[in-house]
């Protein structure tokens, strides 16, 4: 093998050696696992509807049920395996948000219940809440300023 002298040579060498991530296969797995989670949510929603529960409450019940299932599977160490297989398929639905809270809570138990479990729970969920809630407040203020959702008519 000839020696590597420049940064560019090294970059091409690394490119040759790193395996191409099989993006099509990943997307396919993400599609059907993610779709399945949403379809399961919809089935729970339809069951709520047939029992005469109103729409907002039904969506809340769906969220809580999926979060519970995700937490349960995370505790049994099954969710991480699904996550490895499905990638964004289990990350993007609310199950991924729940997993991002439950997983570090379990992992950092040895560091104590306050600074371990309590603090590390929010390593991923914290930023999500910070940006989500801040955006919602800005949107609320913008709504007061413009007092209309007229762009929404599109």
């Amino acid at each position, binding site marked *: 093998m000839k020696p590597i002298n420049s940064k560019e040579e090294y970059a091409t060498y690394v490119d040759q050696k790193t395996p191409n991530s099989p993006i099509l296969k990943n997307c396919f797995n993400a599609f059907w696992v993610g*779709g399945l989670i949403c*379809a399961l949510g919809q089935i729970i929603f339809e069951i709520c509807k047939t029992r005469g529960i109103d729409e907002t409450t039904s969506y809340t019940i769906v969220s809580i049920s999926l979060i*519970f299932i995700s937490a349960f599977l995370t505790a049994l160490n099954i969710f991480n395996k699904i996550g490895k297989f499905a990638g964004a398929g289990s*990350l993007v639905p609310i199950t991924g948000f729940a997993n991002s809270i439950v997983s570090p809570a379990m992992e950092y138990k040895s560091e104590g219940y306050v600074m371990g479990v309590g603090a590390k729970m929010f390593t991923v969920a914290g930023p999500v809440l910070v940006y989500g809630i801040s955006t*919602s407040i800005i949107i609320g203020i913008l709504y007061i300023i413009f007092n209309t959702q007229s762009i929404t008519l599109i």
Partner: protein
Amino acid sequence: MDWTMVLKAFILGGIICVIGQILIDKTKLTPARILVAFVTTGAILGGLGWYKHLINWAGCGASVPLTGFGNLLAKGAIEEVKTNGLIGAFTGGTKAAAAGIAAAIFFGYIASLVSKPKIKKQ
């Protein structure tokens, strides 16, 4: 049971997850950044009033992905602003998303109580 809605939820939910997967594979964004991006996008689309069309079409296919969580925050803020004014901008979003946040924290805590701490294999 409305099976067409279940099918629509499967399709739209799948498509949103594929967008996330493409972002992971092509941009090397960390999962945390992707979740933040999805929530923020959902909140902006919800604030513009566009996201509700997706929810009307596919139900949980749009509400279960994290963009739906963002939409919930934005929708809650706007609803509360309509009734309570400026205070509503601060209370509405979190109030609407409270169930999800509280459930995740509670179940996470329970899971940490019942699970044995793993020893990390290096």
